[in-house]
């Protein structure tokens, strides 16, 4: 006898568990007045260098904590911790991104009541981290000049989920054919509300604009 085939309507978001956990993180940190920021980029664009600049720039103002994701090392977390900043290393076990459950473990390990700002250094990758809500209140990406001005075309989702784009390594501009005006146009076409800042973690150019942006976001968050 042929068994009857039925149709079941599911209509469920595949990532609904992650979205729910991410929402819980946002509420929990909001209640603690702690701004959570998710920092994303390709490998080597300057995430850790930016964190080190940020530690310096925020001295005596915002209390910073860091969650480091790394496929299989603790190098970045050690650099941050060496400067006296609370840092948690998450081992992603080969995963290409952080999800909200992993971020929850990172937050559990920090004393968030004593922090104004927590920055997540996500896994170096422009594809996967864009798809998974980490529970952050703000998404920030770094694009470095040597990567080229055509990246919005190749990774449109990443550019469309971010609140701020930091164009790093501008000390390389004179050596390359990177077209900043064209990049801005491409990025703004994908995401008209994104803010773009040009920086160099090497020379320190533009770092004060980044620190001002951070302080502004944190201040707006605390009211």
């Amino acid at each position, binding site marked *: 006898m042929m068994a009857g085939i*039925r149709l*079941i309507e*599911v209509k469920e*978001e595949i990532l609904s568990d992650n979205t729910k956990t991410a929402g819980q993180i946002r509420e929990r940190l909001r209640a603690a007045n702690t701004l959570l920021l998710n920092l994303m980029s390709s490998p080597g664009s300057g995430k850790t260098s930016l964190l080190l600049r940020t530690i310096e720039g925020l001295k005596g103002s915002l209390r910073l904590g860091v969650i480091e994701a790394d496929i299989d090392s603790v190098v970045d977390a050690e650099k941050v911790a060496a400067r006296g900043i609370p840092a948690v290393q998450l081992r992603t076990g080969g995963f290409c991104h952080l999800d909200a459950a992993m971020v929850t473990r990172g937050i559990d390990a920090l004393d968030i009541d004593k922090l104004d700002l927590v920055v997540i250094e996500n896994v170096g990758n422009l*594809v996967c981290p864009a798809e998974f809500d980490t529970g952050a209140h703000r998404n920030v990406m770094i694009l470095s000049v040597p990567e080229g001005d055509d990246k919005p075309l190749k990774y449109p989702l990443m550019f469309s989920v971010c609140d701020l784009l930091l164009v790093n390594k501008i000390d390389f501009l004179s050596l390359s054919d990177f077209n900043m005006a064209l990049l801005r146009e491409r990025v703004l076409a*994908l*995401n008209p509300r994104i803010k773009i800042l040009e920086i160099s973690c090497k020379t320190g150019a533009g770092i004060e604009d980044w620190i001002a942006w951070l302080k502004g976001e944190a201040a707006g968050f605390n009211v």
Partner: protein
Amino acid sequence: MHELPITESILKIVLKHAEANGVRKVKTVHLKIGRLSDLEDEWIQRYFNYLSKGTLAEGAKIGIERTPIVMRCNGCSGSYEWELAKMDDVICPACGGKGGTLLSGREYTIKEMEVE
């Protein structure tokens, strides 16, 4: 690149609905995935075959419907479909305005499933 965690979530949801509905066997699972996602259909099926061994969903086929990228014009507020390959140069076909706000194209949904 992240087909494995996505497929784990799919299987979890599928089994939840299968159990709630007293299903004997899941035959097909229909997904709706936005064109902005780079998921590879083939890898989802392979991971599903692997993860579903010994469950009600073993041997089920995964069908994927790709939903279009839809933009809303910042100029005239009209909405229009756009291709992934041209995302660096988004132009409203109605008014010629540059750029827009993404309305859809990021879906990750399980629509329905055929079961016995």
